[in-house]
């Protein structure tokens, strides 16, 4: 097996605000191989964005990456790397595409300047060379008339265009890894289709690895080769994309798939996951999904499930791995007895 490009081990990012500690990322581990797209799926509050920010060490007080976390990238541990080493990596070896294209761009500079700035920061070549490369990248991302467009300001461009600019910025220095944090959530569906095709295309061309963070299972199905599902700060399931969609093991993943309205299905009542995500200051004991799970039993309350190996490349944090016959006896989840929905 080839050496992974990025290896996150036991990542813990906690927010210490006064008396309470919010354990937003609570022991997460995964790897990204060169050239692959790893999808991270989860709803709001599960810690996926905080994970991405932790990799690039963009977490500020009152949050911090706890001791014992390790993020290995190209032979270095990003958690303990010094500041100038980290600056060297950001935008250069690992870059990030954010969700809101408007707020990620500075409104008083032209887009060409902002893309070229990435090259100037990382020291390669003259202003003119940086500008030329910027125009080159803008062409690659499919922006029509890139020479003129480079001279426009962010507010003069549409949402889709701005996202292409962000992608150009992310790829300027030909990074080994691109972290895409919900890159298409804020875009219209036809534009989303264009951007996803572009990302897949560019990945093939440059061999970049992508960490695709999203809540949309459809986007995952289209772009990722492997997926991890996060819930309450932990990885609850990891599998390659086909296995995940055909044979999801964890009840949360199952519930998520059934709760999503799909184009091909007839009109029917959607299955819901009753209850709500618990707050990060107060993770429940034992299995964190227990109260919303239709299969839970006593063991789930007593023991926090480890990541069981279901098959070669498929792990799941659920005790059903050792007592699979319980799946035949679902019951109304505990929250339904309390009766208050999300």
């Amino acid at each position, binding site marked *: 097996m080839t050496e992974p490009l990025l290896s996150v081990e036991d990542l813990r990012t906690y927010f210490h605000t006064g008396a309470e500690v919010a354990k937003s990322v609570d022991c997460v581990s995964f790897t990204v191989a060169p050239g692959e797209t790893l999808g991270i799926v989860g709803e709001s509050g599960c810690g996926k964005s905080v994970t991405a920010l932790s990799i690039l060490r963009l977490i500020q007080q009152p949050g911090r990456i706890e001791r014992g976390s390790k993020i290995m990238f190209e032979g270095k541990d990003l958690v303990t790397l010094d500041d100038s080493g980290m600056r060297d990596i950001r935008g250069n070896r690992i870059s990030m595409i954010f969700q809101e294209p408007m707020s990620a761009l500075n409104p008083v500079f032209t887009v060409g300047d902002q893309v070229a700035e990435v090259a100037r920061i990382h020291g390669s070549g003259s202003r003119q060379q940086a500008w030329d490369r910027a125009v080159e990248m803008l062409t690659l991302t499919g922006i029509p008339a890139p020479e003129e467009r480079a001279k426009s300001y962010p507010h003069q461009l549409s949402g889709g265009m701005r996202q292409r600019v962000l992608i150009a910025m992310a790829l300027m220095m030909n990074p080994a890894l691109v972290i895409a944090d919900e890159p298409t959530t804020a875009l219209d569906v*036809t534009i989303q289709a264009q951007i996803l095709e572009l990302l897949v295309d560019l990945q093939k061309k440059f061999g970049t690895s992508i960490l695709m963070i999203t809540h949309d*299972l459809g986007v995952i199905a289209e772009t990722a080769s492997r997926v991890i599902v996060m819930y309450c700060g932990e990885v609850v399931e990891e599998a390659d994309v086909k296995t995940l969609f055909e044979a999801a093991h964890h009840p949360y993943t199952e519930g998520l798939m059934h709760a999503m309205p799909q184009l091909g299905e007839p*009109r029917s009542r*959607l299955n819901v996951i009753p209850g709500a995500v618990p707050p990060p200051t107060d993770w429940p004991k034992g299995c964190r999904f227990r109260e919303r799970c239709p299969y839970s039993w006593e063991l789930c309350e007593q023991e926090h499930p480890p990541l069981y190996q279901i098959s070669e490349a498929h792990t799941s944090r659920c005790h059903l791995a050792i007592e699979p016959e319980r799946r035949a006896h679902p019951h109304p989840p505990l929250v339904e007895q309390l009766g208050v929905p999300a």
Partner: protein
Amino acid sequence: MSGSLPSWAMETSDRIKMVDRLREAEKQGPLISVKNLTKSFPIKRGIFARTSGHVRAVNDVSFDIARGETLSLVGESGCGKTTTGRSILRLIEPTSGEIVFDGKDVCRLGVSGLRAARREMQIIFQDPVSSLNPRMTVGAAIREGITIHRLAEGAAADAIVKRLLEEVGLRAEYSTRYPHEFSGGQRQRIGIARALAVEPRFIVCDEPVSALDVSVQAQVINLLRDLQKERQLTYLFIAHDLSVVRHMSDRVAVMYLGKIVELAAAEDLYRDPIMPYTQALLSAVPIADPKVEKTRILLQGDVPSPASPPSGCVFHPRCFHPAKDAACTKIVPPLEEKAPGHLVACIKQPPTSVTWDAQEKAGGVNKPARYLPVAAVH
């Protein structure tokens, strides 16, 4: 979990019920009839804010909604669906057009008439954060409608508020809490309770689930459907997520740059979209199934600015219909019936009332041709 019948049978029985319902409703006439609704916003330039042009956010839109039906308005940003929804309630004053609610033209109502009409037509907003007054308790917010229309007072009003909270799935004790103590999904439920307080017959749902997580979306969608059955409500459901719309609607209208380009029963639209824009829209939705190999239709470029819409058919610059020609740039296509109950605005998709003669005069060289891309849709 969809019941004892197989899915094809459910679909048929649902459909029979819907057709019956619509036939009943037809006898009574539509609940809402929108005719030629237009809303333009002036563009102000310069120091003295001179009006230099107009943005036609909604451009000559007409449709009916039958009693008990859910009509969805879908489209991407800038298509005018939110403006349409709000104009029907006169939260935005229409520039021209008629909105006939149960026989009365809402646009002509005076202040007191409008207030009475407001009881019957309500709205649910998209953003759970800004749709509730942060300084008002939840109970006070729900009670406001009751107070304004003098439906009940004091203890009676409180009882109604508690009942409504339970109806939307929250506990009655929550009425003394403030909005910031609730999650997004719960706030949407409060917004629904607030709209229901005045016992409306028609509710405009303005992207009610777009800002919610997937699992919470499902809960709210189910709630809306249940309420519709129990209270015989009529919905105008505005959304951009086509999968959600599929679950909610009886009929769907697709909007583009302020115009309705297609209007059909939900099953017909999803199975057999005729307008090229609708086809592209449906094929753009990512499918949560990695096995499905999609030949996706990719539209070129971006949506043009509504301040300077293309001439003739607003979609022509991005259209891929094989018969597209110069006539498309000159003639504004009327919304006409291409299949039973299925209206489309395209002069190149037969049958069309825009004669070949008129098209030739406008520079047309291709005769109208039926076109359905292969394997692009479900």
